[in-house]
């Protein structure tokens, strides 16, 4: 389909699960993962305020740049790495096709 991309969630054991994601609905990666029943609290509803949507990006094309809010929130997490992102700040767009993430629910 034209307006859908595929993103993947990588589990602990390295296996990957495909998630189909529409790019024409203004959704974020957090929202599509939540809608697909992944265990993401997303306490703040996508405002870069809670970090309960923290993911580690394993593979990707070009990602949107970190905003100051997102960077500040990631700076305050003990387990963040240079590959960390807040999935609520990643808007679904064609450029995200093939994105592979790992969920980091424990922040």
């Amino acid at each position, binding site marked *: 389909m034209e307006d859908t991309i595929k993103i993947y969630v990588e589990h602990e054991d390295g296996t990957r699960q495909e998630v189909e994601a529409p790019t024409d609905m203004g959704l974020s990666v957090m929202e599509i993962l939540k809608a697909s029943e992944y265990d993401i*609290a997303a*306490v*703040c509803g996508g*405002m870069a*305020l*809670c*970090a*309960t949507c923290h993911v580690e990006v394993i593979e990707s094309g070009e990602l949107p740049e*970190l905003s*100051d*809010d997102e*960077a*500040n*929130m990631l*700076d*305050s*997490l*003990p*387990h*963040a790495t240079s590959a960390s992102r807040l999935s609520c700040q990643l808007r679904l767009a064609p450029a995200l096709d093939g994105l592979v993430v790992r969920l980091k629910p424990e*922040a």
Partner: protein
Amino acid sequence: MIKTDICIVGAGPVGLFAVFEAGLLKMRCHVVDALPMVGGQLSEIYPKKPIYDIPGFPEVLAGDLVKNLEQQIAPFHPTFTLGERVEELEKQEDGSFVVRTSEGTGIACKVVVIAGGLGSFEPRKPAIENLEHFEGKGVNYMVRDPEAFRSKRLVIAGGGDSALDWTIYLSGLAKELTLVHRGTTFRGAPESAEKVMTLAEEGKIKLLLKSNVTNVHGNGKLNAVSIAVENDTDYTLETDYLIPLFGLVPKLGPLENWGLELEKNAIKVDTFDYSTNIPGVYAIGDINTYPGKLKLILCGFHEAALMAQSAYNIIYPDKKFVLKYTTVNGITELA
């Protein structure tokens, strides 16, 4: 032992409004929260954000809503225990309860209302081996009493706003202060970031960038930490305290073991009166679940009102509940 009619667990907006609904029915409340301030998520996560779906308020800042609630409940003189987590629920023979906190405070009450939201806010802990062994023995996740750090050697870990703020504050007290940050820049409040950079240039603090605390050492009490630097060799730094400041996350915690019926980290309730499976224990606000549940402040307020009329039957078993509009007699202050 504190004595009250209703012990409310959680001082979020719903716990605060429950004081009002209870007060209208002449029931006294004691409120406990793990946070040092009232307001729950509104104070901890988004005090400066405007809320648009509080009836009668086209727009209200979360922090202001909390202030208004405090004002609204003031005539009922609620009492508070802040900065302590509720741990245990003890059922007494006469059907009443004793609630106990992490600091051993006991609250004797006839009804318990859990308004715990997403759970009690607990500090995020970095993955450092043996860190727990030093908790309270040199490792502190919160600065409760800054004076405790006067003339001591401190290591603060973190790069967010609270790490910056406390670095600035404690730099004036500590004998030696080292801030350890994983990144190369600070993206938080620009003034705080600048202030920290200046303190480092002036030699008043040590700033370690691209660094992580990886280990803790000591014999019973912390005396040193290991620092790993990106692309460099690790080293050890002597210190009296390590203060990891990585923000707070809500955790259901001890309530999980109270024998309440749970579903996905939420407490199941009967929507007739928001009672739980334990008679005398109610759950309102974000912490409860029922078919159709919405985690909204508005819904929590409604739940508080229905809970109060049911709790009234427990606290005043001989009196009949009669709904009175506040417009009729105003509100009567509790002595």
